[in-house]
């Protein structure tokens, strides 16, 4: 769940192993926005974990207060159209968002990295086929295809993740392919081949580690886009099904009551925007830290 935090921790833990990482960590520390973003995301992870065992009220308990009533001491963010506590639902929604965001990226990594690696390293017809597929997929409006997929598979959390991966795997594959294409021409790869390294060792031992920086950055940017994706689906009613709250469906419920209970739409909207923003700022920071050449 805590990829972003884990990345930071991983960089902290192995400063001697590779100077790139300690360098990157030093640069990241200087980027205030990225630091604030990581603190926010760490808090969000804590909130999501806490929500597993404790929320102020049960997230599906109805009639806790007069329906649509605004923020008060008992209900910090007010209650919704069924009198459910919005804060509790927001906390559970954080779980959904994080699971979708991180889960999707893990799957995208698992699909995109090997495909891109093999296509880029071996070139030939494998590469032609993959490139063609990538181009076709880029031509399809992703959210629409995902909607159809979720609709066909049935709306569960796993299926939503699968649908998002099916429409977004090519970001990672394309990146990895490009990296592999350029890395395979470098001397150290030739040296490795001359020394008789096995193909697997070559791909995962030499090429992959050298492309890790851009991959991490891409994955960090992929998380908010997956969260946004899920919010879209839930907003349209084809996402996570009630009573499980998702920030997208909460926003949709809030929109219905925007005239008299603006807190209902504001709470999930602000949570969603802050989270996406934090991931994007962290991604920016990581990119500047891991690839100093791209700076300005």
């Amino acid at each position, binding site marked *: 769940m805590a990829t972003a935090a884990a990345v930071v921790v991983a960089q902290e833990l192995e400063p001697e192993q590779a100077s790139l990482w300690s360098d990157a960590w030093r640069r990241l520390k200087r980027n205030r926005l990225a630091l604030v973003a990581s603190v926010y995301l760490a808090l969000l992870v804590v909130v999501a974990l806490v929500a597993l065992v404790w929320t102020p009220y049960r997230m599906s308990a109805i009639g806790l207060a007069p329906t649509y009533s605004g923020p008060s001491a008992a209900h910090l963010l007010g209650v919704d159209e069924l009198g459910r506590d919005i804060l509790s639902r927001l906390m559970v929604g954080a779980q959904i968002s994080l699971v979708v965001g991180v889960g999707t990226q893990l799957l995208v990594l698992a699909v995109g990295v090997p495909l891109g690696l093999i296509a880029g390293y071996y070139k030939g017809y494998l590469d032609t086929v993959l490139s063609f597929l990538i181009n*076709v997929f*880029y031509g399809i*409006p992703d*959210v629409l295809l995902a909607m*159809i997929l979720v609709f066909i598979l049935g709306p569960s959390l796993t299926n939503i993740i699968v649908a998002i991966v099916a429409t977004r795997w090519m970001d990672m594959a394309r990146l990895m392919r490009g990296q592999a294409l350029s890395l395979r021409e470098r001397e150290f790869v030739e040296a490795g081949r001359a020394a008789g390294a096995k193909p697997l060792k070559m791909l995962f031992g030499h090429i992959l580690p050298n492309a890790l920086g851009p991959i991490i950055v891409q994955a960090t940017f992929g998380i*908010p886009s997956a969260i946004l994706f899920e919010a*879209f689906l839930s907003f349209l009613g084809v996402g996570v099904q009630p009573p499980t709250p998702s920030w997208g469906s909460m*926003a949709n419920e809030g929109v219905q009551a925007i005239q008299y209970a603006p807190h209902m739409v504001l709470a999930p909207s602000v949570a969603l925007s802050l989270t*996406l923003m934090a991931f*994007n700022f962290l991604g920016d920071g990581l990119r500047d830290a891991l690839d100093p050449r791209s700076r300005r």
Partner: protein
Amino acid sequence: MLIGFTVLAVSSIVFLLIHRLPGDALFSEKLRGHAYAELLHHYGLDQPLYTQYWNFVVGVVTRGDLGESLVNRGLKITPLVIRETAISAQVGGVALIFTVGLGIVLGVFAAIRQNTWIDYLLTTTSVIGYSMPNFVIAALLILVFGVWLQNVTQGTFFYQLGGWKGDIGQLWLPAFALGFPYASIVARLTRASMLEVIRQDYVRTARAKGLQESVILVRHALRNALIPVITILGPLVIGIITGSVVIENFFGIPGLGKEFAQSILNRDYAIVIGVFTMYAAMVGVANLLVDLAYVFIDPRIRYG
């Protein structure tokens, strides 16, 4: 040619996927036995899958016929989709103009004022911009203009059903919500490529010739700076199309996006397939236009 192929491939995949689903929109408690069989026959659903598929493909290719709605019997999909496309294209077109225009202007501004507070303000705003889902922007806009400042706009931004043309007073809110996240991306990109271009020698030469700064920026620098921006026009159009599904539902605009979401929820597979085919065609055309725009902006690029 390639567009036609992609459109056909995409709609075929969707067709086959959807037709593997159990259950259908026709089934109901009231329809049993003969009536149900007759209805299946009316839609050709009693034939084997490959015949259905063949009929669908032939219908699309030769007559542009996307079939008939399963829920509203007798409703032809092709005219429906075309009418809705016109409405969606209006909203999307305004959003696109707005996106590109605002994005380029802000990007150029940030670039020529690099590292001043204007630059920082604009770059930070753009991250906020593309971090906000369009329905959040739409909700905030409605909250501010529709609820808190009711008297200012008098709630006229809700799109009137049945109308072909929305005036700008109705269009600007949805268009803004639709375009703003992408305007931020265009602004970032313009800024980055503008910074690169204005450091090049030929721009210095232009300055040395004593040209006006505005002429240098617009005629010399911007034209080259726009090439990377055009590259993302394709994804941008796809983004606006995707975003329109949410925004049209939000504002009650009777366009293609609203139809798509409604049909999915209504299980009207025929319309889902038809609308999706239309989307694939639009994306194909958009990509073609982007390729042509390259040639327009950069004469060095030529095709065959």
